[in-house]
């Protein structure tokens, strides 16, 4: 399929091109009813129509021509593109720490895929060195491609594989681990790895990019340099997410894997720590903790890997007119755990009580979190809350809904005893529940206010 001479073309376009004896990557003169065009025939994106062909002009521009108007295609030469990041051997320096970069996908380094017209990841130490040579100033880098999937395709199986790979690399003496990951579900994986890899002696740093590395303005190189530096030289031996602090290329934040969430669909500074402050700031050559209570690096190679997951868990995002059948269907389909993202302090409406009672009776663990994302579940304040607790629903305090989902899956793989599940859920592994929320744990500034605008004028955004 890769050697298809008419890659991406289908239907009418494919027919016309093959009749003319044309092929992709051929340098051609095309005579049409409007006049002559010269260029290279490019492969076509699969989801595009079958009415046009794509031509790259000498100037580098691409244009589309209607196949309907094509009279002749004359091939002058043939030049297949070899899209490859210049690969160079990653230099080894015995004085530098060894870091292992585990690849799961994402756009840390990427190349164009003609089939879909989208960007697909490329990834070897050589390629990375070719694209971001500064990495060699930070550490010795070893890479392993675990899988090449987009963020949304990461799931329990991938969490387990990744956790085991981390364990193996730590035991083999890595000074730090970097995990390249798509950003959409990075916070799910960060939570999963926090539970599955405990008491790590070294930093485990997740990193991705919001602007793919095929753009000059990409955040990928900066993120990668920050992450490698944190893994190689940082003192925080926890699962961290390392992404842009502000949208400027200025510094990154290190977020605790259980308190972090992607908060904007496209901003660079999309990851935020919720209901708390981040662990540290970092740059390609510094890591500066902004709180004292982190786990420090140790010199041993011991780590506890507990990589299990029961995927019969669901998040139910409650909305006012929700019908009981949503819950019923989860019960009937054999789910073992339900995380509710409730309104306000953690509420759902009366019609759901009945199915929820049934769920609890059936031994399903039901957790309550808040869809406000910030703040605690507090079910004592209103009668409705007390009613729900009587049903057996466990208030998960200030655990984020996605984190509760991941943790419940992990806990259920250890036990299905609802009391034990509740106990484990409420015993924090690393910050997924905190005892207190500092005054600056909730900061969503509003633009337009004079004091905020004044602040924005004076600082790099």
């Amino acid at each position, binding site marked *: 399929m890769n050697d298809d001479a008419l890659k991406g073309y289908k239907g009418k376009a494919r027919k016309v091109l093959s009749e003319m004896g044309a092929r992709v990557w051929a340098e051609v003169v095309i005579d049409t009813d409007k006049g002559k065009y010269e260029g290279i025939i490019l492969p076509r994106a699969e989801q595009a129509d079958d009415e046009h062909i794509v031509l790259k002009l000498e100037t580098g521009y691409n244009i589309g021509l209607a196949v309907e108007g094509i009279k002749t295609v004359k091939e002058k030469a043939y030049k297949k593109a070899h899209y490859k990041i210049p690969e160079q051997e990653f230099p080894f320096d015995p004085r530098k720490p060894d870091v292992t970069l585990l690849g799961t996908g994402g756009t840390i380094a990427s190349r164009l895929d003609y089939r879909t017209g989208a960007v697909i990841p490329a990834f070897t130490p050589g390629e990375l060195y070719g694209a971001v040579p500064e990495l060699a100033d930070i550490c010795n880098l070893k890479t392993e491609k675990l899988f090449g999937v987009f963020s949304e395709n990461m799931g329990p199986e991938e969490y387990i594989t990744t956790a085991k790979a981390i364990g193996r690399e730590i035991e083999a003496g890595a000074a730090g681990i970097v995990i390249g990951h798509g950003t959409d579900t990075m916070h799910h994986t960060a939570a999963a790895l926090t539970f599955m890899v405990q008491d790590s002696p070294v930093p485990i740093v997740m990193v991705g990019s919001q602007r793919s590395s095929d753009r*000059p303005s990409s955040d990928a*190189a900066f993120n990668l340099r920050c992450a490698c530096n944190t893994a190689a030289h940082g003192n925080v031996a926890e699962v961290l997410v390392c992404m842009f602090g502000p949208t400027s290329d200025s510094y990154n934040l290190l977020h605790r894997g259980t308190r972090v969430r992607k908060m904007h669909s496209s901003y660079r500074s999309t990851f935020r720590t919720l209901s708390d402050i981040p662990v540290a700031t970092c740059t390609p050559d510094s890591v500066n903790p902004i709180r004292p209570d982190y786990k420090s690096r140790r010199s041993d190679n011991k780590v506890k890997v507990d990589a299990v997951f029961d995927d019969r868990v669901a998040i139910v995002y409650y909305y006012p007119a929700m019908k009981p059948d949503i819950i019923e269907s989860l019960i009937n389909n054999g789910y073992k755990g339900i995380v509710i993202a409730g309104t306000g302090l953690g509420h759902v409406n009366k019609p759901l009580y009945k199915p929820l009672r049934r769920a609890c009776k059936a031994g399903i663990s039901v957790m309550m979190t808040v869809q406000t994302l910030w703040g605690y579940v507090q079910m004592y304040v209103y009668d409705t809350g007390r009613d729900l607790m009587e049903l057996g629903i466990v208030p998960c305090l200030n655990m984020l809904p996605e984190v509760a989902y991941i943790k419940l899956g992990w806990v259920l793989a250890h036990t299905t005893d609802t009391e034990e599940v509740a106990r484990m859920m409420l015993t924090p592994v690393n910050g997924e529940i905190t005892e207190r929320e500092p005054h600056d744990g909730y900061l969503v500034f509003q633009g337009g206010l004079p004091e905020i605008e004044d602040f924005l004028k004076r600082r790099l955004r």
Partner: protein
Amino acid sequence: MSDAWRKKLTESIDFDDQEFYGKLGFKSGLEIHQQLDTKKKLFCHCPVGYRNDEPDAIILRHMRPTLSEMGTYDGTALMEFKTRKQVIYQLYRENVCTYEMDDTPPFPINQKALDYAIEIALMLNCQLVDEVHITRKQYLDGSIPTGFQRTAIVGVNGWIPYRGRKIRIQQLALEEDACREVQDRGHEIVFRTDRLSTPLVEIVTKPDMLTPYETAEVDGLLGRLMRASGRVRRGIGTARQDVNVSITGSDRIEIKGVPRTGDIRPLTHYEALRQKSLLELRERLNNRGITPETFKADYHDITPHFTDAEVFSRSGIPESAERIMVVNLADWQGLLKHQTQPGITFAAEIAGRVRVIACLDRMPNILVLDSQPEGMLHGELGLPIELEEHIRAEIGADEDDTLVVVWGPAEDAETGAKEIIIRAKEAIEKIPQETRQHMPDKCRTDFERILPGPDRMYPDTDSPPVALAPDRVSEIRNSMALRPWERMERYLELGLPRCLAGDLSIHRHACLFERLVAGSGISPLLLAEALVSWQKAITRARLEVALPPVAVDEDVLESFFTDAAAKKTPRRGLLYAFEKLLNGEDVEPLGPLSEGQLKTLCLKVIEEYEDYNFKQDRFKLDFLLGEVLERSEGRAEPAKVRKILKELT
């Protein structure tokens, strides 16, 4: 002073000397960027706007080169990466959103802008593409926060008539405008984002202009054509042109951002001469046996030799210089003094490169040590003789070798030294293809960057291609504005004098004029005068008393003149009402006064001034006539009034 300089350099030149430029092999092409008159930007919904106030926020970014679609790095891109600039963007909350900040993917392309681009492409006789592919054109200078400009070809292979031949239009692209540079100092460059992403068309001609005069003329012609479309923004900064020049034996050099058509002539002329001079330099080098194979140059750190203040002050090198490097160009004696442009020499080519690539922008940034008796390039600056001899001995340079000293922060000084060698070597091989900035007052250009190639193009994976439906195109073709040369002909046929026809052919109300002439039966000459000459005079009169022009909607104008045609408003009456209209009053044109109305008015005036004493009856009649005409608001014929007044007095 610079005006005198410019005058001296330009007054005696015949910029249309076909024989002279023909011998040189002068060829020149244009790349015109013209903003389109849409309300919103090209890929987001921000209003187009121009800001000069304090920014609401700033962001910092860096640019890295990426691979092209064909799998290679672009030369410019790599060069700009060497410069390691910090790029600061100034943001304005009303005119810039997260799209321009490169924090939100593009919205679907502005369809109005696409229609306008199609229309202009058709006016330029271009072959339209059937599917518009949005492409990323890399700019690592920071002028666009994404690091690339989104651009799309709409038409190719067009032409316009000129001097009985065709000037070929290579392509017309629809693209987003870049930022405005506010400041560029050392490793920091500041851009303002207000203009960013404003829709514009880029028109590229083939190098079909054969004298500087022709280049300027075609530039004017294309400008008029776009104004004739009625689809473009007008005013300062809404149009910019890049001019490229080559001569026999040289490659294309691009002069960036020439703001005025008038500057094109001297700039292209002297650019052609610069190229000629560089070819002569190559010859001089070859005559000395310096070829790409025999070229010898190296660089050395001479920082330790700079210890006492005397040496610093003699050399003009600041004591703060962290590193001082010297480049030895073997056997180059005297060649850095080879004149390339009015008043400057090849050393300036080197200094330009060092300025941009190594970010050493405090001039002078190099010091040439050449043992020729005429002395140094920068006047009295140099090294004490003993020190120079000591350095020469140390690095093994003899007196036929030219030394070039460069200084600055350690890394930059080294980058500078390497770049000096690169530029010197290029002088032996070819004229480097580059983009040059201009200094019109001095008729000079200076290095800006290496000319980017097709490798900087990359398909925009964020935007789907847009198919151009045949219906859409034919609809635009049918309602398309006439080209200025077509209009001109038509207006001459209508009996307009040549200069009025010329002005009107590129006037924003040209379409209105044609509609009214066809539909209302108004006199073409009268209407043309009103729309062009009167409008201009009234606007100027307002400006003289510091009043802004009043914007009158085209449909208001249309009903005004239709009304005037129906009522047979006399010329003076029309002027009277039109003046009020353009001063923001709500008026309608009125027809001529009837015989009866005139008589009544005359009687009234006579009665009012009955007691006035006039020395002669003649004065009285003239006075009354003037008074009646004034009160008639232009609706009375002077001859008729005179006749009535005579009868009545």
